[in-house]
Every structure is written in C-alpha cells, then in structure tokens.
C-alpha cells in the first residue's frame, strides 16, 4: 500500500503546541484532561490525531479554536502558537477574528452542525459578512463560487436549500465550503467522515485532499478510524488519556509502532479478510424469511403518495449457531428488515417464520408468546437501557414477564453478569455508571436472558471504540458457541461483517443485490455495488493487526485505491 511520504521539515510551521495543559475549571490540582501536549503542523501537512473516545482529541481541537466550554474546562499551562503568534490566552474578540480567517473547523455530524432553520447558502455567506467588507452581491458570488469548488451540483438551487433537504455528503461539502471560503492556514477536521457512508466518506476525503493541495492548508485531522489514517495522514499522533504517547510519520507508525498502546490500537483493527468458514450447521432453520416487503407511507389526505419501498422481496434463512450479516449504506433497508423480523414494525407483505410459527401476520396479542424467541441489541447502549432502572431490573423484566419467579430471575441475572464479564455486585448500579462497552454488554445480557433462538444485532458495535468493539465481537462469538443462538448482524462496516458473519447479504435501496457465504461475497464480489463498497473501505490494503500489507487483497477487477 502507498503511504504519503512527503517531507515537511522545510515548510512554514502553522501550529505549534507546547506542554499544553487543560483541566477542570477552577480545579488546578485535579487530574488534567490534557497533559502536556506537544504538537506541530506545517503548511500542506495532514496530521492525524488518533485515539479512543475520551482520550482528549476533541478537547485539543477546541483548545486551539478557543472554544473550550468555559464553565467546565480551562487552559492551565503551556503554549499554543499560530504562525508565530501566541494565542494561548487570547481575548475572545481576538479569537473571534482568527476563526474562519486563520483557523477553521469542520465537525463530525453535518446534519447537526448546520443550523436547521437557515438556508445553507446564507450560512456560508455569513462567514463573509462577519469577516469581510464585501457587498451583498460580491459575497453571494463568492459563496456560489466556493460551492462550485467543493463540487456541489446545481449551486443556485442548493444555495436556497435548507440542511435537511440535502444528502449527508452534500451537507459535509457545505461545511467544507464554509470552513475554507476565507482560505485559512489551518483546518481542523473533527471526525468529519465518521457519520457518512463509506462511498461518501471516500469522496469527502478526496475533496479535503484536493482543497489542501490547492490552498496549501495545514490539516489537523481527528479520527478513531485507522483505515482513514492510513489513507490520508502524513504524520500521526496517538493520544491516550490526555497524553500524546507516540508521534511518527504514517509508514513508521503502521509498520513499526513503538508504544504498547499503539500496538494494542492497531491490533484491534479488524481486517477485511473474512473469518475462516465454519462447518455448515445441519439443524433445522431457526428463521425463514420469504418475500418480505416493507413500504412506508403511501396513501395521503389530499395528494396520494406512492410511499417508500424500504425493503423489497427479501429472502433468507439462518441455522442455529450461525450468523448472517446484512450490510449496506444508510437508507439501504437493512434496519427495516431487522425491525420487520422483530415485528417492531409490521411488514407490508411476506412471510417470517420463527421456531416453526409464521409470525409476520400475527396480531400483537397473538405474537406475545413468540417475542422471547427473538431478541435485539441496538446500536446506542446509552439510549437503549432505561436510565432510571438498575441493571438488575433491566435484566429481570423479560424473564418475569414470561413467568419466571423473581428469585430465579435474580439468580439468572447474576449468572448473566458473569457471562458478559461484569461483576455480580454491579447489578444494583444504574446504566450511567458504566462505560459504553460495559453498557453494550448489559444490553447483550438483557437479550440473552430471554434465551432467544435468534439474536438480532442492529449496528451493535458501531458506536464503540475499536478495542472495545473487538471485545464485544468476541463476547457475541462466545455466546453463540455456548447457546447455539442464530444471529442476524446488521452493519455498515464490512470489516466487522468479515469478522463475525458466515453469510452476507448486501442490500442497496431496499433490494438484495448479493447473497452468499461471507468469504465469497467479500473476496469475489459479483455485483458492482458490493465491489464499490469494498473499494471504498479505507486502508483495505493494509493488515493493521500484523503491521504489514494485506497478503490476500480482495482481488477486484481493475481495482485501484
């Protein structure tokens, strides 16, 4: 795999940070949030800041922007220097004048980062109104020109649009146009592609590189995704618990990491090579889905609408102890399928048979006894556990509903806690007292408590850091071995799918475009869409866990990355 290898030692230094310390406001003796950070970025360089959530990446960027939340965090020492001028304790008015002109920032989620009630064109233009004396007409002309530079189509129409009328990729292009319109020296990108689909991510990464090339901007790129780092970084800093533990050019870091923490991070990155195929199960199918259709909307009061066909003619079966993955981008219909099977929504047509019973058309009341055969784990454990309930209550509720006595349910709950590697005495705690990974373990324990035949995991590891992700995937594997539960694994992440699935089903716009053994689909995709997905996966030529190039790169016709 080709890494960037340009040497920047002779370029102008844009940002210099020395021994920067950020701590809780008014508590200089408490443990610092950033502990003596050093950082240098030169013109034209892309410096990646990687680390797990809570490591201090975003705090670093906010400190540079002068946007630390005043009542929570403050700078307690060190130096931030922008182009030779110290801005560590600059006055708000000074910082305000620097923002957008000298330092600009783009954020993770372009939907929430844009103001929903203002037209996107106005939002870009506002930057010009704040910082320049351009007339209205000139400002508008420059805005439209910038929108063309970021390759937005039909700029006159999009200028008038509101954020919710644009796609995720278009919104992020608007953010980039807004950040770069005054040609700043430094662009801080805080996880700018994390919320986007892989194919869109690829386009946005290319756009940032193109803009950087054209304007010689220094880029501080914050991400947790090693694949992205491999594609775009010149140099990398690895952060852990508020410290920078390792700093190196990209090739050195990936081939010869020095620190244990860096090694641990890299080894947790799943690679795209599918898992070794397991012997096909011989038992009867746990679930049979035939011709499943789901159409949202339709009807209408004054105007008849067609409705959205979110899933069309979906067919599959899963055997006990085996995992089927459904992969696809947002809007592909993968979560719709999961929800139909769980009967959280009612499918428009088709058959779903679980444990020998046809459930697709049962009424809510008739369905009740079959619910325990099907259990689901959702993406965001922060929201899927009731914050006012103790873990014990969450774990016992289901079994008690199905006739288990309270004592028995409590005993079972304690066993489950051990199963998911959490202490028994944590049963009396509330969800907010656990980390994200621990919460997801609790969510899994809750699902397993019902002894389901089918466990549906809807993006169940997508919100977790890679190292935690690897542990949770292992846990799911263990549970499958122990109980022989069948699993339906919904994910947008091909690496995760490669790690855990026996079979893969690829969906696009509600249709199944490819379905087969994981090995075959991922290494020898037949459908163009599958191929596009695989090619868009960043860093797919690198085997992070072994610090070397992939031995067996999925051989794609005419593939270049």
């Amino acid at each position, binding site marked *: 795999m080709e890494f960037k290898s340009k040497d920047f030692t002779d370029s102008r230094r844009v940002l210099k940070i020395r021994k920067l310390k950020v701590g809780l406001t008014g508590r200089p003796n408490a443990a610092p949030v950033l502990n003596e950070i050093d950082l240098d970025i030169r013109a034209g360089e892309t410096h990646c800041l990687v680390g797990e959530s809570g490591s201090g990446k975003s705090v670093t960027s906010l400190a540079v*922007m002068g*946007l630390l939340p005043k*009542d929570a965090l403050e700078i307690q020492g060190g130096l931030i220097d922008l182009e030779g001028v110290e801005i560590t304790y600059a006055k708000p008015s000074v910082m*305000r*004048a*620097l*923002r*957008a*002109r000298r330092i*600009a*920032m783009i*954020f993770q*989620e372009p939907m*929430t*980062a*844009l*103001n*929903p*009630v*203002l037209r996107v064109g106005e939002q870009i233009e*506002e*930057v010009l109104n*704040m*910082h320049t004396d351009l007339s209205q007409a000139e400002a508008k002309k420059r805005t439209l020109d910038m929108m063309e530079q970021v390759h937005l189509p039909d700029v006159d129409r999009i200028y008038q649009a*509101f954020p*919710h009328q644009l796609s995720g990729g278009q919104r992020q292009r608007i*953010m980039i146009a*807004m950040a770069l319109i005054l040609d700043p020296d430094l662009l801080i990108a805080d996880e700018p592609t994390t919320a986007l689909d892989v194919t869109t991510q690829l386009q946005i990464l290319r756009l940032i590189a193109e803009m950087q090339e054209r304007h010689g901007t220094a880029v501080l790129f914050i991400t947790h995704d090693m694949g992205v780092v491999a594609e775009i970084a010149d140099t990398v800093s690895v952060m852990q618990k508020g410290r920078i533990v390792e700093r190196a050019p990209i090739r050195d870091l990936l081939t010869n990491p020095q620190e244990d923490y860096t090694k641990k991070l890299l080894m947790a990155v799943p690679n795209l090579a599918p898992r070794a195929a397991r012997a096909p199960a011989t038992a009867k199918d746990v679930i049979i889905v035939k011709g499943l259709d789901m159409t949202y909307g339709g009807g209408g*009061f*004054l*105007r008849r609408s067609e409705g959205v066909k979110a899933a069309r003619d979906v067919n599959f079966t899963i055997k006990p102890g085996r995992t089927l993955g459904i992969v696809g981008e947002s809007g592909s219909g993968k979560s719709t399928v999961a929800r139909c099977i769980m009967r959280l929504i009612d499918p428009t047509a088709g058959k779903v048979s679980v444990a020998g019973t046809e459930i697709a058309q049962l009424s809510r009341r008739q369905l009740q006894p079959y619910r325990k055969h099907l259990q689901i784990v959702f993406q965001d454990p922060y929201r899927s556990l009731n914050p006012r309930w103790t873990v014990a209550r969450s774990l016992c509720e289901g079994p008690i509903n199905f006739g288990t006595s309270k004592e028995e349910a409590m005993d079972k709950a304690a066993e489950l806690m051990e199963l998911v590697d959490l202490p028994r005495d944590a049963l009396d705690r509330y969800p907010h007292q656990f980390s994200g990974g621990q919460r997801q373990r609790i969510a899994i324990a809750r699902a397993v408590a019902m002894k389901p035949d089918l466990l549906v995991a809807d993006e169940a590891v997508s919100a977790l850091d890679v190292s935690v992700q690897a542990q949770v995937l292992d846990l799911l594997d263990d549970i499958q071995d122990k109980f022989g539960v069948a699993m339906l694994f919904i994910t947008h992440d091909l690496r995760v799918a490669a790690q855990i699935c026996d079979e893969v089903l690829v969906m696009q716009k509600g249709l199944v475009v490819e379905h087969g053994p994981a090995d075959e689909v991922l290494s020898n995709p037949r459908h163009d869409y599958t191929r596009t997905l695989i090619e868009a996966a960043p860093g797919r030529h690198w085997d992070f866990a072994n610090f070397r190039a992939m031995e067996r790169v999925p051989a794609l016709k005419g593939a270049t990355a």
Partner: protein
Amino acid sequence: MFLYILKRVLATIPVMVIVAIFVFLLLRLTPGDPAAILAGDAATPAQLERIRERLGLNDPLLTQFITWMGQLLRGDLGTSLLSNTSVAGMLADRLGPTINIALMTIVISVVMAVPMGVIAAWRHRTWVDFLVMSFSVLGFSVPVFVIGYILIQIFAIDLRWVPVQGYKSPADGFGAFFSRAILPSLTLATIYIALIARMTRASMLEVLGEDYIRTARAKGVRENVVLFRHALRNAAVPILTIIGTGFALLISGVVVTESVFNIPGIGRLTVDAILARDYPVIQAMILLTAGIYVFVNLLVDISYSFFDPRIRY
C-alpha cells in the same frame, strides 16, 4: 405551504362542529324543561308554550339542531333573555375591550420575557439567571388581583399617573386608551412574563448546547448574532406554543381583571350571564371561547412552519 395551511384550516371544522353539538345539547339535556329554565320561576303555562313554540322545542331533536346550526352559520346567536337584545350584538360590543387588553398584555409579555429568557440562558447559573428565575417564581405565585390592587395603589392613587379604573377605545385617542389599559395589561402580564421567560430560557438552554451553535462560534460569529439569529429561531416552537395558549387563555380568563379594573369586556359579560342564567349568552360565550382557541392554535401551527422549515405536513 398553501396545501399545509388549507389542511390545517379544514382540520378546524370538525372541532368546531363538535363544540357546537355540545353547546346545543347543553340546554336540551339539562334536567327539566328548557322553556322552564329560560322563562324563569314565575312563568305561566301560556308563556312556557309561547317560548317552546318560538324556540321550536316541539320539533324533533334533529330538526331543532339543524335549525339552530342554520341560525348559527348566519351569525344569529339568539336573543339575550336578560336584555332582550341580540347576543351577537352584545358580544361585538364587549369583544373589543377584551381583545385590545389581551393584545397589549401579550405584546408587553413577549417584549419583556423573551430577552429575559435569552439572557438568563446565555448567562446560565450566574446572578442574572438567578434574578430572572426569582422574578419568574414571584410572577407565578402572587395572585392576579393582589398585583392589580398593588399597581392601582401605587400608580393610580399615590402617584396619580393614570386613572384608577375604566376603559376607552383606541378610537378615542391612543393616550386615553393607553393610560387606562396599561395597569390591567401589566397585571395580566406578570404571570405570562414569568411563563414565557421560563419557557424561553429552557428552550434556549437546550438549543445553546447544539452542534450548530458551536459551528456558528467556530465561524467567528458575534455572540449577539449567535443568540438571536442562530439560537432563538431554533428555540421558537415551544415559545410560540406558550404565547398562543397564553393569548387564548387571556381572552377567556380576564374575568378577575375586568372586575378589578371595571372594564366592559366579555369577562364581565360572562359573569353577569351566568349569575342571571342567561343561556343564549352563555352558549355564545362557549362557542366564542372555543373559536378563539381553535383560531389561535391555527395561527400558532402555521407560524411554526415559518420559523422551522422542517415542519411540513
């Protein structure tokens, strides 16, 4: 946009029909003979029969309802039993003062409460915030009539800046109207200032934590622009709801203030009608109040889509 407004307007029709049915049944289903209720205790059987004949009470219920609805749609609300004049005319005379006072109240409330709420949210957990919240608690807890009498004592009796009581229409000169309307409006406004300031603060606090506020600051936008251009419009929907409900409540709930300040509005008309069992007037008042609620809510619903482009049904 037009389609949305049309839908909302059409949706008000069933609500008003249900209210009309209820009002119609109110008199018919009250225990006893409506004619006897209307005629009072001292009526002779001949008088009763005449009333029955006049009101069509001898017809089947459905026929009566259709006749009544027909009159209603032509704007005929019946005749007051007390004054023997047309109810519609009585309402028209009394509605002006009430609506003028309500409008002035709501304008005072919004002009004071929204900036108070915005600043309290911006300076969250400082003495400014504390002051606004303390005032808000006070505004909620002191009864309206107490505030009214205190204001009269200070501004009308001690300082003699304004008349104690009474009402003049704006047509008689704005000064005359304003000097008489200001005390009742301030009295009524206290609770709405408290309510709207609280709602504004809560809604702004939520919005100020949003990502796009951080984006605005990252663009180098000045704080006042952040607050009023970026944040307030996003915080508008719950504030509008409170203002709308507040306005409707004001019109139906001015009984006490109109008594204290001796204003000839619909509040006093209602009290008089209830005390005299003037059923046609009471019916008209119920219809009117419901109509105002529905109309104001319609306006609020439509204004949502003006403030928030995502709202399109």
